[in-house]
């Protein structure tokens, strides 16, 4: 069995993992190895052939493959090692890894630091318990995207999309462009889940958007034949008699992403039930010393640009740790999300250095007043669930922070 010792192992070669590895390398960490289970580096981006990537990070409008290619190239050029089609089987709290691939078989790696960058997976039909039959023709949006944009197949020609999140909206557009008919986009909430720029395609292509609707029944014994949707009342309960059956051969599910933390759990990393990801501190370090995390494994981001920034931060911090310049946080203030704030990341701060908090709200609000502890108040003109809210904690603001073990982050609507 191959045995290696490394400074850093990055688990996951998507946007977060690549940015982290590159930043660590640029700051003196060597050797580094990226372990990726897919057959290429880049995570989800190679299949995201639409534009809208890089507007913040590069100030350019790029496609997914273009965006990620810049990082892949840097990895190639910098001599960072990577392994493809490689699955991590075991991760211990002490940085020991057992991984496997076809070319090398089993390998035992030991690293001074680990960065978790496994990304997320899609919520399935099974998890939703949508009533009805279980025919062929039900796909999660990301799987359908891969089938179309990587494999070159179209899963169906009359398509209903469940969930108005970004991936669902992007797939609506892709199906139209492949000559399929998109029969509608169905959203349980009274407001759409995706970014405005992705919503635009519904109007452009005349695709109906059913807000406050849920899938009530899937029909079809061998292949999907139709889906019945029902209108929901203000409490989210189906209104009897307000059903509509839409004929289609394909149902696309874009109903949520779940950070993939099976490895983290087994390594003893503490998770935040609200994000589904590890609890991290302002250095992106998890509850297990020398195991850091970044990207969608921590919480589901809406822009890859932010994922990249988070990855870079994690990579830089790991470098400092390895060079002995960044001890674990001494003072730990735990931030607790309350009210309209669904979650806040990082969950642990020192209160001693300026930082940006990322937060997601439960429902839209105007002229929102976000309170951190008793004394810090941050105003936001508009907040809505699809868009991460950034809260800058400047040195000025931090002066007002109560230095207690636990502080609430809250917003009253």
């Amino acid at each position, binding site marked *: 069995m191959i045995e290696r010792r490394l400074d850093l192992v990055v688990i996951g070669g998507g946007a977060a993992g690549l940015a982290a590895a590159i930043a660590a390398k640029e700051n003196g960490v060597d050797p580094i190895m990226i372990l990726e*289970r897919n057959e290429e580096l880049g995570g989800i981006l190679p299949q995201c052939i639409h534009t809208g990537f890089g507007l913040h990070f590069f100030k350019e409008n790029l496609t997914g493959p273009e965006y990620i290619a810049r990082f892949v190239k840097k990895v190639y050029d910098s001599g960072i090692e990577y392994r493809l089609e490689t699955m991590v089987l075991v991760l211990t709290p002490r940085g020991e890894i057992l991984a496997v691939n*076809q070319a090398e078989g089993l390998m035992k790696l030991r690293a001074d630091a680990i960065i978790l960058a496994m990304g997320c997976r899609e919520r399935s039909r*099974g*998890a939703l318990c949508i009533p009805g039959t279980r025919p062929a023709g039900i796909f999660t949006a990301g*799987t359908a995207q891969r089938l179309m944009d*990587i*494999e*070159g197949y179209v899963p169906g*020609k009359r398509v209903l999309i469940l969930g108005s999140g970004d991936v669902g909206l992007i797939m609506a557009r892709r199906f139209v462009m492949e000559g399929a008919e998109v029969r509608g986009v169905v959203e349980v909430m009274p407001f759409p889940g995706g970014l405005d720029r992705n919503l635009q395609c519904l109007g452009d292509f005349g695709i109906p958007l059913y807000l406050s609707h849920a899938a009530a029944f899937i029909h079809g*014994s061998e292949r999907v034949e139709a889906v019945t949707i029902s209108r929901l009342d203000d409490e989210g309960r189906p209104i009897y008699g307000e059903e509509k059956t839409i004929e289609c051969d394909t149902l696309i599910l874009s109903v949520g992403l779940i950070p993939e933390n099976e490895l983290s759990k087994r390594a003893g990393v503490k998770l935040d039930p609200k994000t589904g990801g590890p609890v991290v501190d302002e250095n992106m370090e998890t509850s297990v010393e020398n195991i850091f995390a970044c990207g969608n494994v921590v919480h589901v981001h809406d822009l890859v640009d932010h994922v990249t920034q988070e990855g870079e931060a994690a990579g830089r911090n790991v470098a400092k740790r390895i060079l002995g310049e960044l001890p674990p946080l001494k003072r730990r203030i735990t931030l607790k999300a309350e009210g309209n704030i669904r979650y806040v990341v990082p969950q642990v701060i020192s209160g001693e250095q300026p930082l940006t908090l990322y937060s997601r709200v439960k429902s839209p609000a105007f002229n929102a007043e976000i309170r951190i502890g008793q004394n810090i108040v941050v105003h936001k003109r508009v907040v809505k669930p699809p868009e991460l809210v950034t809260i800058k904690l400047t040195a000025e603001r931090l002066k007002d922070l109560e230095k207690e073990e636990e502080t609430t982050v809250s917003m009253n609507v």
Partner: protein
Amino acid sequence: METSVLIIGGGITGTAIARELSRYDVKVALIEKEVDISFGGATKANTAIIHAGYDDKPGTLAAKLCPRGNILWSRLASVLSIPFKRIGSLVVALGGEEASVLEELMERGGRNGVPNLKIIENEELFEMEPNLNREAIAGLYAPTAGIVSPYEAAIALAENAKQNGVSILLGTKATDVIVEDGEVKAVRTNNGRIYTRYVLNAAGLFADEISSMAGIKEFEIIPRKGEYVIYDKDLSGIVNHVLFPVPSPVSKGITVTPTVDGNIIAGPTAHDIKDKNDLTITLAGLEEVLDGAYKLVPELSARRDTIIAGFAGLRPQPTTEDFIIKSYREPFGFINVAGIKSPGLTSAPAIAEMVVDILKRGGLTLEEKDDFKPFRKPIEHPIRDFHPTKTEELIAKDPRYGHVVCRCEYVTEGEMMDAIHRGATTLDGVRYRTRAGMGRCQGGFCTPHVIKTIARELHVPVEEVTKRGNGSKILPYRAKQLLLGDERE
């Protein structure tokens, strides 16, 4: 085509009979209307329990065959490498009234010959099941109860039967039973006539229709629907035994049990319906399952987010209430093995023995073969069933066992290839044999790989690969095909 014995139905009953008959020097064929073994009916969707045998009314066939089947499973699972664990079951009484039912069951179990039944009380109960409802006052413990993978069992039985000379004809549906001069002559199918001396009707939900074709209309099969939910392996260990509530007149109630694969399953409901193809899951069914599950294990109510799938199965409930396993004076050669409801999975090996006996008594000469091969090599799961040295050896021999394709269930390309070469032709066929796509992401990541592998290995276009045969195509069009107006499927 000509055979001596024709078995109709590739579920657990038909395959168990086929494998039992394959010991003997006799020509046997099995037909299954679906494209793969166990795709048809109750076998693919049930609670996957090997029952101890205290439930059935003494004197019935079920009461006789269930405890016998329970004993036979140990050896069968071992020689055929079928996932099987004897974890024991507990019927849980939640109040004084229910506790008296336990006494009745124990007494009935004694009469059925079920060994080692014991009533467990108080702290001992919670030591066995720490997450059991605290209102539980007693449990009937049956140490011989177990869990099995029913579709893997049927597939293994069919594979071994085939190894021993049985013809397995998939996608072959019986359309008539031809009787001449009071004797069975042949069975007409969509793939032509099969001449045979004996017909064994193991057609599950459709056994009444097959029986009618032979002129025997003494029973009907009512589909009794059962809905289930499966929980993530994260919950593994939340229960350690098969947990039953006290039974009702129509069913053994909503069970919570580990599966052989480490998930937790809850269900089934029990509702008699009309449509033998109605495998829909419903909101009402889901609520009923969850209510039942929460009564046994209240902790589950906080774990709704760990449900990974729901499904429904249909048990073939006979109007006679008991298994119908018998031959007839006329038409001679026709044998019903019908109404194999619960505990049919448990009873299957005993049913097979009984059918062999009926055939012998009916005049069929059955001599044991010298070259019967009782063993079946399993599909290796080197990553899921990790072993420090064996895993490494297997990957060294065939590196495809180092390529993990299904990341949730740790299924490698090597396993998928083996499954395909053993006869899987569809996505579900690969799933049932390897568990690829049965984990928490439900095939989100591995589906494209599995489809491509099937297409490559079977030399068919990707567009032709189906979920489970017939019209269940998964990727009907190539990119740009719809734009070109070429919609031929």
